Every structure is written in structure tokens, then in C-alpha cells.
């Protein structure tokens, strides 16, 4: 179970794979640039790619400055979600009362559209960092709880019995059996949650903020600087991809699946 996708293993195969990717995106870029010019699309609707690239270079300081702010919101929200998500999952799994009370409440709260909550969060926690961290947290929390819970519950029964036969205490069984066998599911949850954390922060910035990439997108669109809108969108996307890659990289440390 070391990797889900089939990978080209030979050097030549890998080079060819890279080449195919590059060719594909180069074609997309040419189609974008070409169709904007040929059909004479007005740039406030869709700027040519070259303008977007120029904008990225010209406004790099601005993008960086706002990007750092969004990055901090996302990372703080995600880490908070990962830590409290695991604790919540453990609580619901091990405490029967929590399973009957906290868990249904959680499911209920999850059903509230979080985008609709955003204005309230801004009112409660202000225009600054806190409200965005909380938005990011809200988006990322639930998938982590659910997948970690699934991992804890999915500990193979025959291994549990094996630990009983070895007279392992509940504590030892938790650390040496349940935690490692739930880790892959936890990582899966983190992979789902990471892009959601970015969305949460940007939504928060849309609803009420003075800075951040979401704010920059709003300002740029409002002043018809569509190339800056695209540049900011590109920055958010790049950040989301990079953070996902970091999570996936950590995830590769837990390559096993307990159901061997």
C-alpha cells in the first residue's frame, strides 16, 4: 500500500511524464493568451495571461504581504483543527456519554452552512486575525474528527484480541495499537481538511477584513484590476497546493494500513 497511483519507475518514463505535464500546461497557456487576443476579450472580463504574469512580478511585494497574513490564518486554524480534532475523536470514541451527547451536537453544528456563520464570527471576533483563524478552523475541524474516529473504530479486532492475550493495559493498547492504526485515517482527514482551511480563511477575509489575499481579491475586483484579481487567485491556489504537499509529505511517513 505504498502509493495509490501507478508511478513510472524508469528514469525515461519519469522524464516523459514530466514532459507530458509541461506540454499540457503550455498548451493551456497558449490557448488562454491566444483566445483573449483573437476574440478581443476585454481585459476586465479576462486579462491575457501575459498581463497576469506581469502583474505577479510587479505586485510581488503586495502579494507576499497579503499572502503571509492568509498563510498565518490558515496554518493556525489548521493546526488548531488537527489537535482538537484528534482530541474530540478520542473523547467521542472512549467516553460513551460523549458519544451520546457531544457527537450528535457536533453533527448538528456541522450542518450549519459555515459561510453563513462568517458575518457572525466577524462580529464576535473582530476584523483581525482571530476571526479568520476561527473560520479556517471551522472548515477543517469536522473532516479530521470524522476520519480519526473512523480510524480508531477501524482497529482490527484480531489485533485487539492479540493485545488482550499479551495482557496489555488500556493505555498501552491505545499507544501501541490504536494510535498507529488510526494514523493513516487521520492523515487522510488532514488531506481533505487542508484545502478547506484555505477556503475558510479566504471566506472570512471576504466577509470582513483589512488585509489577506481574500481582501486583495475583493479590492482588485472592485477597482477593475482584473489582472491583480487573477494574480491573487493564483497566489491562493499556489499556497493551497503547497500546504497540501506538506501534509501529504508528512502523510507518507504513515504508509501502512492496519488491515493487512
Amino acid at each position, binding site marked *: *500500500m505504498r502509493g495509490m497511483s501507478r508511478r513510472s519507475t524508469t528514469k525515461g518514463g519519469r522524464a516523459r511524464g514530466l514532459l507530458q505535464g509541461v506540454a499540457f500546461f503550455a498548451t493551456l497557456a497558449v490557448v488562454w493568451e491566444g483566445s483573449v487576443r483573437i476574440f478581443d476579450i476585454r481585459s476586465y472580463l479576462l486579462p491575457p495571461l501575459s498581463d497576469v504574469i506581469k502583474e505577479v512580478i510587479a505586485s510581488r511585494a503586495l502579494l507576499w504581504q497579503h499572502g503571509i497574513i492568509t498563510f498565518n490564518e490558515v496554518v493556525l486554524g489548521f493546526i488548531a483543527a488537527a489537535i482538537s480534532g484528534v482530541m474530540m475523536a478520542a473523547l467521542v470514541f472512549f467516553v460513551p456519554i460523549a458519544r451520546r451527547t457531544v457527537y450528535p451536537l457536533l453533527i448538528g453544528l456541522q450542518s450549519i452552512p459555515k459561510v453563513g456563520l462568517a458575518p457572525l464570527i466577524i462580529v464576535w471576533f473582530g476584523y483581525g486575525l482571530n476571526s479568520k483563524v476561527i473560520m479556517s478552523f471551522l472548515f477543517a475541524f469536522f473532516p479530521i474528527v470524522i476520519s480519526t474516529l473512523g480510524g480508531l473504530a477501524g482497529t482490527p479486532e*484480531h489485533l485487539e*484480541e492479540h493485545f488482550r492475550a*499479551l495482557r496489555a493495559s488500556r493505555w*498501552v493498547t491505545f499507544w*501501541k*495499537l490504536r494510535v498507529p492504526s488510526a494514523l493513516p485515517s487521520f492523515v487522510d482527514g488532514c488531506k481533505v481538511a487542508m484545502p478547506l482551511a484555505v477556503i475558510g480563511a479566504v471566506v472570512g477575509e471576504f466577509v470582513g477584513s483589512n488585509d489577506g489575499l481574500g481582501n486583495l481579491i475583493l479590492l482588485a475586483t472592485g477597482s477593475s484590476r482584473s489582472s491583480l484579481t487573477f494574480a491573487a487567485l493564483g497566489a491562493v491556489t499556489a499556497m493551497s497546493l503547497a500546504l497540501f504537499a506538506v501534509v501529504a509529505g508528512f502523510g507518507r511517513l504513515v504508509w*501502512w*494500513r492496519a488491515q493487512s
Partner: protein
Amino acid sequence: MVASAIVSATEFPQAREPVIELRSVSKTYGAADGVKALDGVSFDVHEQEFVSILGPSGCGKSTLLRAIAGLTAFDGEGLSVGGQPVVEPMDDVGVVFQSSNLLPWRTVEANLRLGAEIRRETPDPQRMTAMLEMIGLSGFENRYPHELSGGMRQRVAIGQALVRNPKVLLLDEPFGALDALTRDKLNFELLRIWQAEKKTVVLVTHSIPEAIFLSDRVVVMSDRPGRLLEDVRIELPRPRDPKSTRTSADFGKYVVRLGELMGVQ
């Protein structure tokens, strides 16, 4: 891992003190009207004896082994191991299940160490090395279970049970999922390990030749609910050898006898 290793084997192990005593052990899963898996099973297993439990699928063999291992509650007059009534798993009992016991995130060596780790002991490095040697996996200590064959995995599971040096070894079809050829080979290795380690062994199986080849006694169970049909003493000379033992006339007689008991014609 060569056949000549068996030459050093000692004489036929005589029945000694009873180590495992079952007195009319019954088990019903669920409520009183649930599935009756065991119905009044009584027998003894003596020190250093090799006893096989033979019976059709679903007759309660695994249930019986779980009861001896202290992993499941049961009814009846009593069940004791080493003179102690069984109420929970004991340190002196090692168990190998039908499905692999191995933790996929631990190497062979770390899996062997698990029992000691759980008891907060440092495993004796000499014993570890000797055990790897005995199960024929020297050089594989840093491999993960998914890098091993099914037979190698079960050998690690047996090693894991043995490394803690329990008096009693309970084996639930340890080679059940393997092909016949590998199974024969591993059975022979099991025999060698048993002779070297001087354990009391209870092996669950539904293979008649396997039970005869390995055992001092074969306990034959009926279809569900499992009752004891007959307790057959296997008086084949030891050391046993895959070729001469299996082809002897006595072996054939035991095959016929046990086959009749199990309703195979």
C-alpha cells in the same frame, strides 16, 4: 532449516503432570437461546504434550482455544492452566491466531519484541537472535510484514509467542491459509521447535494428516455444538519424519480411524 536438524530430538515425551485441565466446558454466544458453540468438553493436556483439536469448520475449535487463553467467558465446572483457574490471559500462555497477529508498522524484530515491551521488559538479545534463527528468519529482522510471504509471517507470529518463553503454546490453525506444500514444511519446523523448546502445545486444525503427524493425542470434536467425540492417542514413534512417518502402515490406520470419526468415508 534442514531435515537433519531433527536427528537431535529426544525420546517420546511421556505424559507427565496435567498442565491444562478442562472440566465440562460449555459456551453459548449471545443470550441463553444463542449459538451453542461448545457443549461439555472435558480433557487434560499434560506437560510437554502435543495435542491437536480436530473438528469440522464451525464446531467451536477456536472458541475452545480462546477459552483456554482466557480471552472468552465460558460456563462449566472448570478450566485451569498450570493449576490456576483461567479468568484472564496468563503470562505463561502464548497464542497464535488463525489470522496474522503482526503489526504492519513494526519490523519483524520489533514485532518479536512486542510482548516484552508490553511488560516493560528489555528482551534478551541472545534469545531474540536465537528465536530469529529458530524460525528461519535471520537476516529478515528489519523487514516489514508486508515484505514477507504468508508462511514467513506466521513463523514470526509463532516466534512472537515463543520469545516470551511461555510454558503453553496455543495455536489456532497457524498455517491454515497456506498452500499444502508450505504447510507440510512448516508443520515439520513446528515439530522441531516444539522438541527444542519443550512446550506444551495445543494445536487447532481440521487436517487429519497434520493432526496425526504432529500430535501425541488428537481430540476429535463433533459438529456444532462442539462435543468431545474421542480422544485418540497417536502412538507413532518419535522423532517423526515427513517421509517414513507419513508412509507407515500405522499412519494410514490413524487416517482411516479419524476419518471415520469425522464422517469422512
